[in-house]
């Protein structure tokens, strides 16, 4: 495992991804200290609207004269926490379901995997829109729950596949010969072996989840205003894009950097864990 870390850090993309993700996490954590203004305060409705970037407002102001820099910084908190927590939830569920399906085999496996196939056949945003249309005024917690519960399908298939191949390996037979029980084999022998693909899936998943959250907020069904989220800021900015380009641009850049950062990190970890690259 120490070698894996070394191999991961030896790649420039991992260092870059780590720097991006690290900076973002730091920004999200320190947003109250870094932000020059209250992100929801309407500063000067009498003439402070749609100000171009300047020394006092580095990212400019929006239609309600709110400081955009402060909103983007606070938006990082919402976007990252929603993405990370919902990915943790989804990967957790996916791992359990995959482990159960792969180990049990037979009817349970068939039922679970056909259900996953059916769920995957429905476009995710469409699925989310239906759920969110039914659940009015969803809070941040509710959003995390919904995102987590609708995105574990991929992870469960990956884990199931791994378990199917792992359980035929000699070391599982060897453990069984020596009287190690099924639950102990699953938790102590199989789970550590699926950790690698799960970590990769989770890392790449966070980037995707940031995008999904932004898309939902952009469609006005995610995080509700005035709470700043990158998606909702972009939505607001898109309406005045020709006169105030900065409103949609800055959260857009933040979004791109986040997704790129997690993708680089995830790809790099995958390379480091791939036995063929050793």
């Amino acid at each position, binding site marked *: 495992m120490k070698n894996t870390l070394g191999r991961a850090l030896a790649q420039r993309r991992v260092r870059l991804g780590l720097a991006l993700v690290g900076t973002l996490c730091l920004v999200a954590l320190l947003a109250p200290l870094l932000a020059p203004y209250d992100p929801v305060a309407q500063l000067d409705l009498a003439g402070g609207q749609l100000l171009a970037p300047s020394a006092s407002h580095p990212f400019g102001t929006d239609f309600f004269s709110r400081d955009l820099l402060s909103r983007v910084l606070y938006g990082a908190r919402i976007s990252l926490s929603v993405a990370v927590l919902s990915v943790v939830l989804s990967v957790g569920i996916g791992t359990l379901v995959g482990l159960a399906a792969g180990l049990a085999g037979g009817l349970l496996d068939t039922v679970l995997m056909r259900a996953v196939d059916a769920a995957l056949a429905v476009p995710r945003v469409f699925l989310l829109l239906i759920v969110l249309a039914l659940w009015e005024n969803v809070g941040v917690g509710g959003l995390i729950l919904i995102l987590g519960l609708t995105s574990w399908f991929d992870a469960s298939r990956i884990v199931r596949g791994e378990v199917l191949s792992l359980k035929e390996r000699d*070391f599982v037979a060897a453990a069984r*010969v020596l009287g190690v029980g099924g639950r102990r084999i699953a938790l102590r022998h199989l789970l550590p072996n699926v*950790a690698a693909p799960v970590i990769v899936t989770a890392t790449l998943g966070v980037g995707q989840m940031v995008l999904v959250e932004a898309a939902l907020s952009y469609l006005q069904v995610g995080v509700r205003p005035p709470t700043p989220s990158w998606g909702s800021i972009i939505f607001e900015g898109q309406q005045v894009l020709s006169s105030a380009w900065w409103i949609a641009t800055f959260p857009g850049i933040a979004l791109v950097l986040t997704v790129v950062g997690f993708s680089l990190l995830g790809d790099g970890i995958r390379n480091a864990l791939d036995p063929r690259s050793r």
Partner: protein
Amino acid sequence: MSPLLRVQQLSTTFTTSGPPARAVDGVSFDLEAGETLGLVGESGCGKTVTALSILRLIETPPGEISPDSVIEYDGADILKLSPPELRRIRGAEIAMVFQEPTTSLNPVLTVGTQIAETVRAHRPVSRDEARHRAVELLDLVRIPEADRRVHQYPHELSGGMQQRVMIAMALSCEPKVLIADEPTTALDVTIQAQILELLADLQRQLGMGMILITHDLGVVAGIADRVAIMYGGQILEQAPTEALFAQPTHPYTEALLRAAPRIDAPSERLPVIPGTVPPATAWPVGCRFHPRCRHQWEHCTGAMPDLLQQAPHHRVRCWLVTEPHRRKG
């Protein structure tokens, strides 16, 4: 007194598409405490299936152990145990070491963790105690610097060391019977000798019964008390090791011994046994070895011989026992 392990009329059949494969067909043997039995035969003769059947590790389906078979350990029929009872026997009473140590160890766990897990599967001990036991066991299998090695991953160890770890795992709960399935086949020759010596020493030290499965007569010659030669899912000859090497009676045993290279004979081409092992789906009628036997006559193609008494403790599945004059020079 009944033996520690008694296998009687063990038959294991695999049914896939096509005719059933009778991989093991009526194998019987006993194992006493402290005794080493060598189970010898070429690939596909049913050695490994016999071993797996003893621990009920045959996947059903496609495999099936015939209901007439009896596998008695310490008076209890293993074939009738419930899954939890079976789990208590596996590892704690009867343990097994496999051929390939490299794939038999979990690559993402340290060897100490793996040994500790096996201990904890059978005994209500704390993590620390189990780890302490792991160090003791690595010491027992003569791995130097056990307290450091215990923290290493399998890939940091050589093949011989890995096999020692497997043996340590197998011995972790002091089993009464150890089944070693080709334990040295994947290792190079010098390491083979060390591992065999280790197994023999541990077997004496712990008073275990050991079943040593191998295709190498040289391996059993050194450490087995008795040898059973398998062919076509059956035991063809069973005798104390010395008697078997001094007086090989079955033509197959004879041919095997002749085909082994000798260090004291001038090197020339080694004789081979003509033909190949028939598939388990189509054993020949009569004696299963007759198509490859140089002594065969009509009787051999018609009726399968039982294990016939050649001498005390020496039994042979061959009509030559009853008609020795038929043996060709």
